[in-house]
């Protein structure tokens, strides 16, 4: 891995020692297998310790790992066939949200997701996963298309937020997101939403209304990014760790607060350590949930979707 976070240093150190011993042992032909086994056990234990006790901020860091798989990578690994569709039929084609029909074990599913770039050039092309109103309108067009042909919708969420630009305001960023919230809450096909990385605010929620809302283990979901939260409350980015704790943005906290329906376990260390396993876990989860949702009357499914979101919030009377 090219990117190692501070909290992963003990792992990197142990790995370094192991590599060194292997080299020495090869050169000198001295048997060091006992030391190696010991170190490897220690490494496994350290990894498990570190990754099962991550702070909110450390989770945020993993969710942004540059090698973490993005929407199109998952679609490619999950689907037998996939046809990408473009454009909102009004203004243009947003590159930060992708979508199209794919087949999952023979069943056709509409996939829609935020897309980040895999290198500097592509990151710019994808606008860092920050969609303009066209992106949300393209998403809605595709959802309506899925509804028309009675195909379920799966959305993959990974955005640092909706794009706060001048043209985005001119073309009604607020209206585009609002419209999606309303339309998705009554869409007459099952919807599964999975937060695969960053779930920041309205930009995430804009494709996030579903019968099953799931989070990958190390993803985060909240009303604002920890940096911006820190900037507003303390006028500086320096308190981002504290903000990440306060916001309770981890999958675990979100489930505890009944704001999501489930957590999808990641390979140890995060999805980027083993994208293929991650993809196959996601695929199994989608198939399982689709099967359950498909077996029920769609009116009941939609009614329960609305009731679920309407029950969220804590008020005192």
């Amino acid at each position, binding site marked *: 891995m090219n990117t190692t976070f501070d909290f992963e240093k003990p792992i990197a150190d142990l790995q370094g020692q192991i590599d060194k011993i292997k080299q020495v042992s090869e050169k000198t032909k001295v048997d060091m297998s006992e030391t190696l086994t010991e170190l490897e056990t220690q490494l496994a234990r350290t990894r498990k310790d570190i990754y099962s006790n991550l702070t909110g901020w450390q989770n945020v860091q993993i969710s942004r790992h540059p090698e973490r798989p993005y929407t199109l990578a998952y679609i490619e690994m999950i689907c037998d066939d996939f046809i990408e569709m473009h454009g909102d039929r009004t203004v243009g084609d947003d590159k930060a949200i992708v979508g199209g029909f794919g087949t999952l074990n023979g069943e056709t599913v509409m996939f829609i997701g935020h897309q980040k770039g895999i290198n500097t050039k592509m990151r710019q092309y994808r606008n860092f996963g920050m969609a303009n109103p066209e992106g949300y309108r393209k998403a809605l067009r595709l959802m309506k298309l899925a509804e028309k042909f009675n195909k379920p919708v799966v959305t993959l969420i990974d955005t640092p937020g909706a794009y706060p630009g001048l043209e985005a305001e001119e073309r009604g960023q*607020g209206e585009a997101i609002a419209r999606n919230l*309303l339309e998705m809450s009554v869409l007459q096909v099952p919807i599964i939403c999975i937060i695969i990385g960053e779930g920041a605010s309205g930009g995430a929620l804009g494709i996030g209304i579903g019968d099953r809302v799931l989070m990958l283990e190390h993803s985060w979901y909240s009303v604002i990014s920890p940096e911006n939260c820190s900037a507003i409350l303390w006028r500086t980015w320096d308190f981002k760790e504290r903000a990440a704790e306060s916001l309770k943005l981890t999958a675990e906290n979100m489930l505890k607060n009944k704001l999501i329906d489930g957590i999808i376990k990641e390979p140890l260390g995060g999805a980027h350590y083993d994208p293929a396993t991650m993809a196959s876990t996601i695929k199994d989860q989608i198939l399982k949930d689709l099967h359950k949702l498909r077996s029920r009357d769609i009116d009941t499914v939609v009614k329960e979707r609305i009731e679920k979101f309407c029950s*969220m*919030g804590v008020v005192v009377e």
Partner: protein
Amino acid sequence: MAWFKRDKKGIITSTEEKKEAPDGLWNKCPNCKKALHYADQVENKYVCHYCGYHLRIGSKEYFSVLFDNNQFTELFENLHSGDPLEFKDNKNYTERLQESYTKTGLKDAIRAAHGKINNHDLVIACMDFNFIGGSMGSVVGEKIARSIDYCIEHKIPFLMISKSGGARMMEAAFSLMQMAKTSAKLALLSKAKIPYISLLTDPTTGGVTASYAMLGDINISEPGALIGFAGPRVIKETIKKDLPKGFQTSEFVLEHGFLDFIVDRRQMKNKIGTFLQMMKS
């Protein structure tokens, strides 16, 4: 050299003789800086009679401007915030709430009421900016949701008056989900074919714009109101350029097709009344 000279320096009126001007009797127009008398403000629906500037007002004033004879029944009065996340920045959220209760006399950033406009029944939910920046947390979402249920049950049109900086950070993801909640309820209101008027007032931004405020059968506003998704400061930082004059004003939003009309507060009641009449007949 000065023509007149002061004999005695400093203020010499003794405290007992000091004349107190009752607090809030006079107010300065933030736009033209002229002094406005309270009675004139009320008379003129809180619009500056010199320059036409629409003063920022709260639910109490909007109810008095819109409801016939200022008569209404307040709904779901006793809802207030919990602290589900035990949120703490420089202050505990519970402390912040207590301070706001004392300062504003309000229970949260929204009040809902049932009354009549030109004899048409109407439910109004109106946000109060004084209460933690009019931020949308669980109470705001819940009151809007219940108001919509009430409208569906009694077949009464709904007017939402938005005035907010966006979602309430201290309730984090709970606040975010209020966007989903209110939008889902509005879908049901729409299905029931009950008119929904969204009035966006100064300022309406963030998650409020990206949910119920933009979902009216008609979206209307007052002159000169700030309306947007991202705040002007954030956009300026993103594009690293100065923003064009008049950017994100209600006039700008009307020009770009997201408002049906802008109405002067002094004509608002009649215009809404006419719309309600049209929807009836």
